[in-house]
């Protein structure tokens, strides 16, 4: 299933059973996009959108094997934290890292972000691979503003039928 919107230019898609893909283009060369996504002073300015809360922790040890940790306090006062380790870094082009959501320390997902630059425009593609379909679907639900966190399964076939 794809949801795209001309106004915000982002495309979010479920890939297979366990992945979510986010695609967006930036009107800038890749080195700027890479900088904005890998340096803490810049990540602090976009990771927690103002409408959702405030970023409270932003630690990045940007090297293969290095750790990262992001946390925010949501507008409803909840602390939400994520952490992981860098698996691959290809400067200006590609980053892969693990990601763990604090309440579920055993659930490890892998996020691979690639940047492709052409004529000063950069296509940003981030694929998050979750260990199971149930986890992926739950993550989407927790992305909701209303803090839905009930577990549920096997929805993408259903969602696909709507498009």
């Amino acid at each position, binding site marked *: 299933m794809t949801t795209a919107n001309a106004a915000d230019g982002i495309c979010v898609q479920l890939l297979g059973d366990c992945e979510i893909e986010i695609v967006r283009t930036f009107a800038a060369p890749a080195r700027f996009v890479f900088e904005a996504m890998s340096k803490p002073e810049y990540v602090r300015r*976009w990771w927690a959108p103002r409408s959702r809360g405030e970023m409270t922790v932003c630690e990045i040890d940007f090297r293969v094997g290095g750790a990262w940790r992001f946390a925010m306090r949501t507008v409803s006062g909840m602390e939400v934290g994520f952490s992981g380790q860098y698996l691959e870094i290809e400067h200006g082009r590609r980053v892969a890292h693990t990601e763990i959501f604090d309440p579920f320390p055993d659930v490890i997902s892998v996020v691979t972000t690639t940047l492709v630059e052409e004529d000063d425009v950069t296509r940003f593609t981030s694929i998050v691979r979750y260990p199971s379909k149930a986890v992926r679907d739950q993550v989407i639900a927790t992305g909701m503003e209303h803090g*839905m966190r009930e577990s549920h399964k096997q929805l993408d076939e259903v969602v696909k039928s709507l498009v």
Partner: protein
Amino acid sequence: MLATFTALAEPNRLRIVELLREGPQPVGEIGARLGVRQPQVSKHLQTLYAAGLVDVRADAQRRLYELAPGAFRELDAWLGDYRTLWAERLRGMDAVITELRKQEAKEKRPRHDHRKRR
């Protein structure tokens, strides 16, 4: 919304929903296609009906079950909200990138001012 997820979390109920994507079906047909006994199918259909996922209508002697559009629109909104989060983040990244570009342009510009002041 929670009712929707709970209803779909049961594998046989999800299979029923998937089967109904082909079109309206009577209970007997659903049971036969899925290899599930009819009383079980009826129970699942009741749950799906209570969650607003299926509707039922009479067709001559039979009762036909079909997907109800309302609950599925909610599911669509569900993925949409995740998208909104990322749209907001990436818009924030846009602002950072614009600033980084300006900074770089500024650094590259030769500094005439100092010489002129002398």
